[in-house]
């Protein structure tokens, strides 16, 4: 069992879990992910590692509650445990000294962006971060990101904090403002990553995206996470999760992510009904 050492709410429906997994923590690098399973009837769920502490033997995971499995994980408390944690999986993010790097995080994507931003900063790059959310109260990891960034730009969809607009607006401002950007890393919802990639393609700035595709095993065995990159089929678990954002077929991936949409909705509705019953009792 993989005990949860610490749990906290970061924002509405977003939970941070510090999990004991010494062997994973020992090897984890920015960009790696794990597959977790919560309970004997649970799914195998890929989650990007948001941080790690080799001495304590822990990894940090950030989960947004969007369906049955994720909401059950968000209910976990310190002292609870995951049934399984497998990792570190995937290729670590390629970190190099390239000059100026812009790390773009959308929503819960700030969690996986954080160790990457830190690694780029430690490698000697100028690090500019862009953090976007629907509104101010959904922004988290502010202190962490500011500590590793030369500058942080915030955007909110409703204008409650920072720039009223999308992360693409902030990236455009940065580049148009004369900043010579060598690389962009974008992690967040698929439409956001696509929008960033479309923008930077015009500027000719290399852009890495991290894909958290639906998968079962996470080791290259099922092929469920396949994604078309530059016209070739790749498995995001073992060939990724990082890919050249300009080459990813986002339209296909968006469709594929909805492969079990009906089943997920059914399970979630059923879960919420049962949850209601529990409270009456």
């Amino acid at each position: 069992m993989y005990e949860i050492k610490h749990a906290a709410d970061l924002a509405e429906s977003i939970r941070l879990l510090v999990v004991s997994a010494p062997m994973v923590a020992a090897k984890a690098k920015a960009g790696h992910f794990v597959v977790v399973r919560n309970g004997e009837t649970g799914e195998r769920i890929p989650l990007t590692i948001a941080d790690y502490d080799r001495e304590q033997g822990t990894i940090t995971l950030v989960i947004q509650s969007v369906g049955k499995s994720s909401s059950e994980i968000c209910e976990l408390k310190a002292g609870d445990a995951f049934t399984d944690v497998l990792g570190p999986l995937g290729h670590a993010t390629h970190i190099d000294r390239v000059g100026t790097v812009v790390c773009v995080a959308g929503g819960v994507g700030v969690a996986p962006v954080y160790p990457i931003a830190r690694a780029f900063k430690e490698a000697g790059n100028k690090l500019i971060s862009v953090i976007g959310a629907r509104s101010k109260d959904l922004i988290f990891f502010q202190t962490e990101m500011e500590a590793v960034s030369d500058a942080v730009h915030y955007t909110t969809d409703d204008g409650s904090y920072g720039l009223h607009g999308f992360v693409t607006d902030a990236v455009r401002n940065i580049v148009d403002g004369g900043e010579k950007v060598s690389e962009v890393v974008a992690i967040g919802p698929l439409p956001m990553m696509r929008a960033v990639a479309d923008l930077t393609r015009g500027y000719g700035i290399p852009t890495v995206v991290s894909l958290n595709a639906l998968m079962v095993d996470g080791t290259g065995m099922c092929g469920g996470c396949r994604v078309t990159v530059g016209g070739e089929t790749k498995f995001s678990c073992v060939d990724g999760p990082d890919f050249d954002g300009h080459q990813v077929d986002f339209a296909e991936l968006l469709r594929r992510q909805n492969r079990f949409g009906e089943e997920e909705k059914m399970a979630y509705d059923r879960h919420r009904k049962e949850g209601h019953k529990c409270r009456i009792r």
Partner: protein
Amino acid sequence: MSDKVKMREQSPAERIRNFNEVPYGYDEREAVQEASRCLGCKKRPCAQGCPVEVDIPDFIARIKAEDFTGAAEVIKRKNSLPAICGRVCPQESQCEALCVLGRKGEPVAIGRLERFVADYEREHRSSDAAVVPAAGNKTKVAVVGSGPAGLTAAADLALMGYEVVLFEALHAPGGVLRYGIPEFRLPKAILDEEVGYIRSLGVDLQYNMLVGATLSIEELFADGYKAVFIGTGAGLPYFLGIPGENLNGVYSANEFLTRVNLMRAYRFPEYDTPVRIGRHVAVVGGGNVAMDAARTALRLGAERVSIVYRRAWEEMPAREEEKHHGREEGIDFKLLNNPVAILGDDKGWVEGMECVRMELGEPDESGRRRPVVIKGSEYVLDVDTVVVAVGQGPNPLLIQSTGGLETNRRGNITADPETMATSIPGVYAGGDIVTGAATVIAAMGAGKIAARNMDAYLKGV
């Protein structure tokens, strides 16, 4: 000469509505009757056909004498997974193919007898293990992958007295026996029992250990392991390389079967992992995996399941029994048919598969007649789910992370067929990771040979 004793089984109409095992197995009377057909011949050709060297005539003689526990002991001296072998081994091309009775009639049903003995022993087991491990020698050895090769190597090494740690990447043991072979062919409870037996020999089974990511072969040696066996199987699914393969509704057989078998999607939503079946399922391929996928789809409620295979019935590599069961259950065999494209609707879901008809031409390098496209034979098969079961290759993850491990052109680990030794001293490999996708029993045979040679290597060190 009498015919072999028939094995009772669920009727096709009944069994396509459940995931229970198809055959019921022999009872004691049937087993003794079948065992009595064995001539007990001196030359013992059957035993030479067994990759794990089971003393077949000896265990059959014990059945004849109604000493079923004694029969189990004879088997378990050589084979730690008899209930599995009795169910999934292709006996017809191994031990039974060499039985002298087979020259004039039906060979002794060795597989069914093995199954009977294993089931009897499991149900009547006393607290004493059938076979006792040798005294411990405190030498640590690692086995990577808990499929049939790894389980066998681990069991044999434990019996020799080694301290064995068995590393499994998934959250449950068995490899392909767990994620690939369906419940109706190999009940998970039986797999659990056999794995439990291997653990009772002292094997320490550790899950969520992806060697190549969580830890490396190099680190295993640094941690004090003196030898390593790699049995990581053929886990990387091949696709067809035709348009439309990434449409929603297209699965690799690995994904489809893993969802159902390992993750128990057939009990969704009680279990969280879903699987979508659709109304008409096409399974592309003609091997045992294709047959497993097709029969699984049928049980999950598909209205029609078609096997699409480019050669003819005789060339299908699946076991006769599986083909026969599939036909009885109403699988539609589209033989001499080959898919050329999968067609999707405007939302990206499968709505058909374009196929061509084939005819058999001259034999190819495999000796099978080469299928040739019949010009102008294109047509669209009405399907909404496609399962691609055209084979699996070696997973490169462990190999890439292990410096100095030699592989062949196809990416399989190179191992000496006599010893299973790889290019790295102390590292052995066997099963599908060496041979490419083959049978459970071939993998077990390799695990056995490796264990014996690891022992020799360790004693020589």
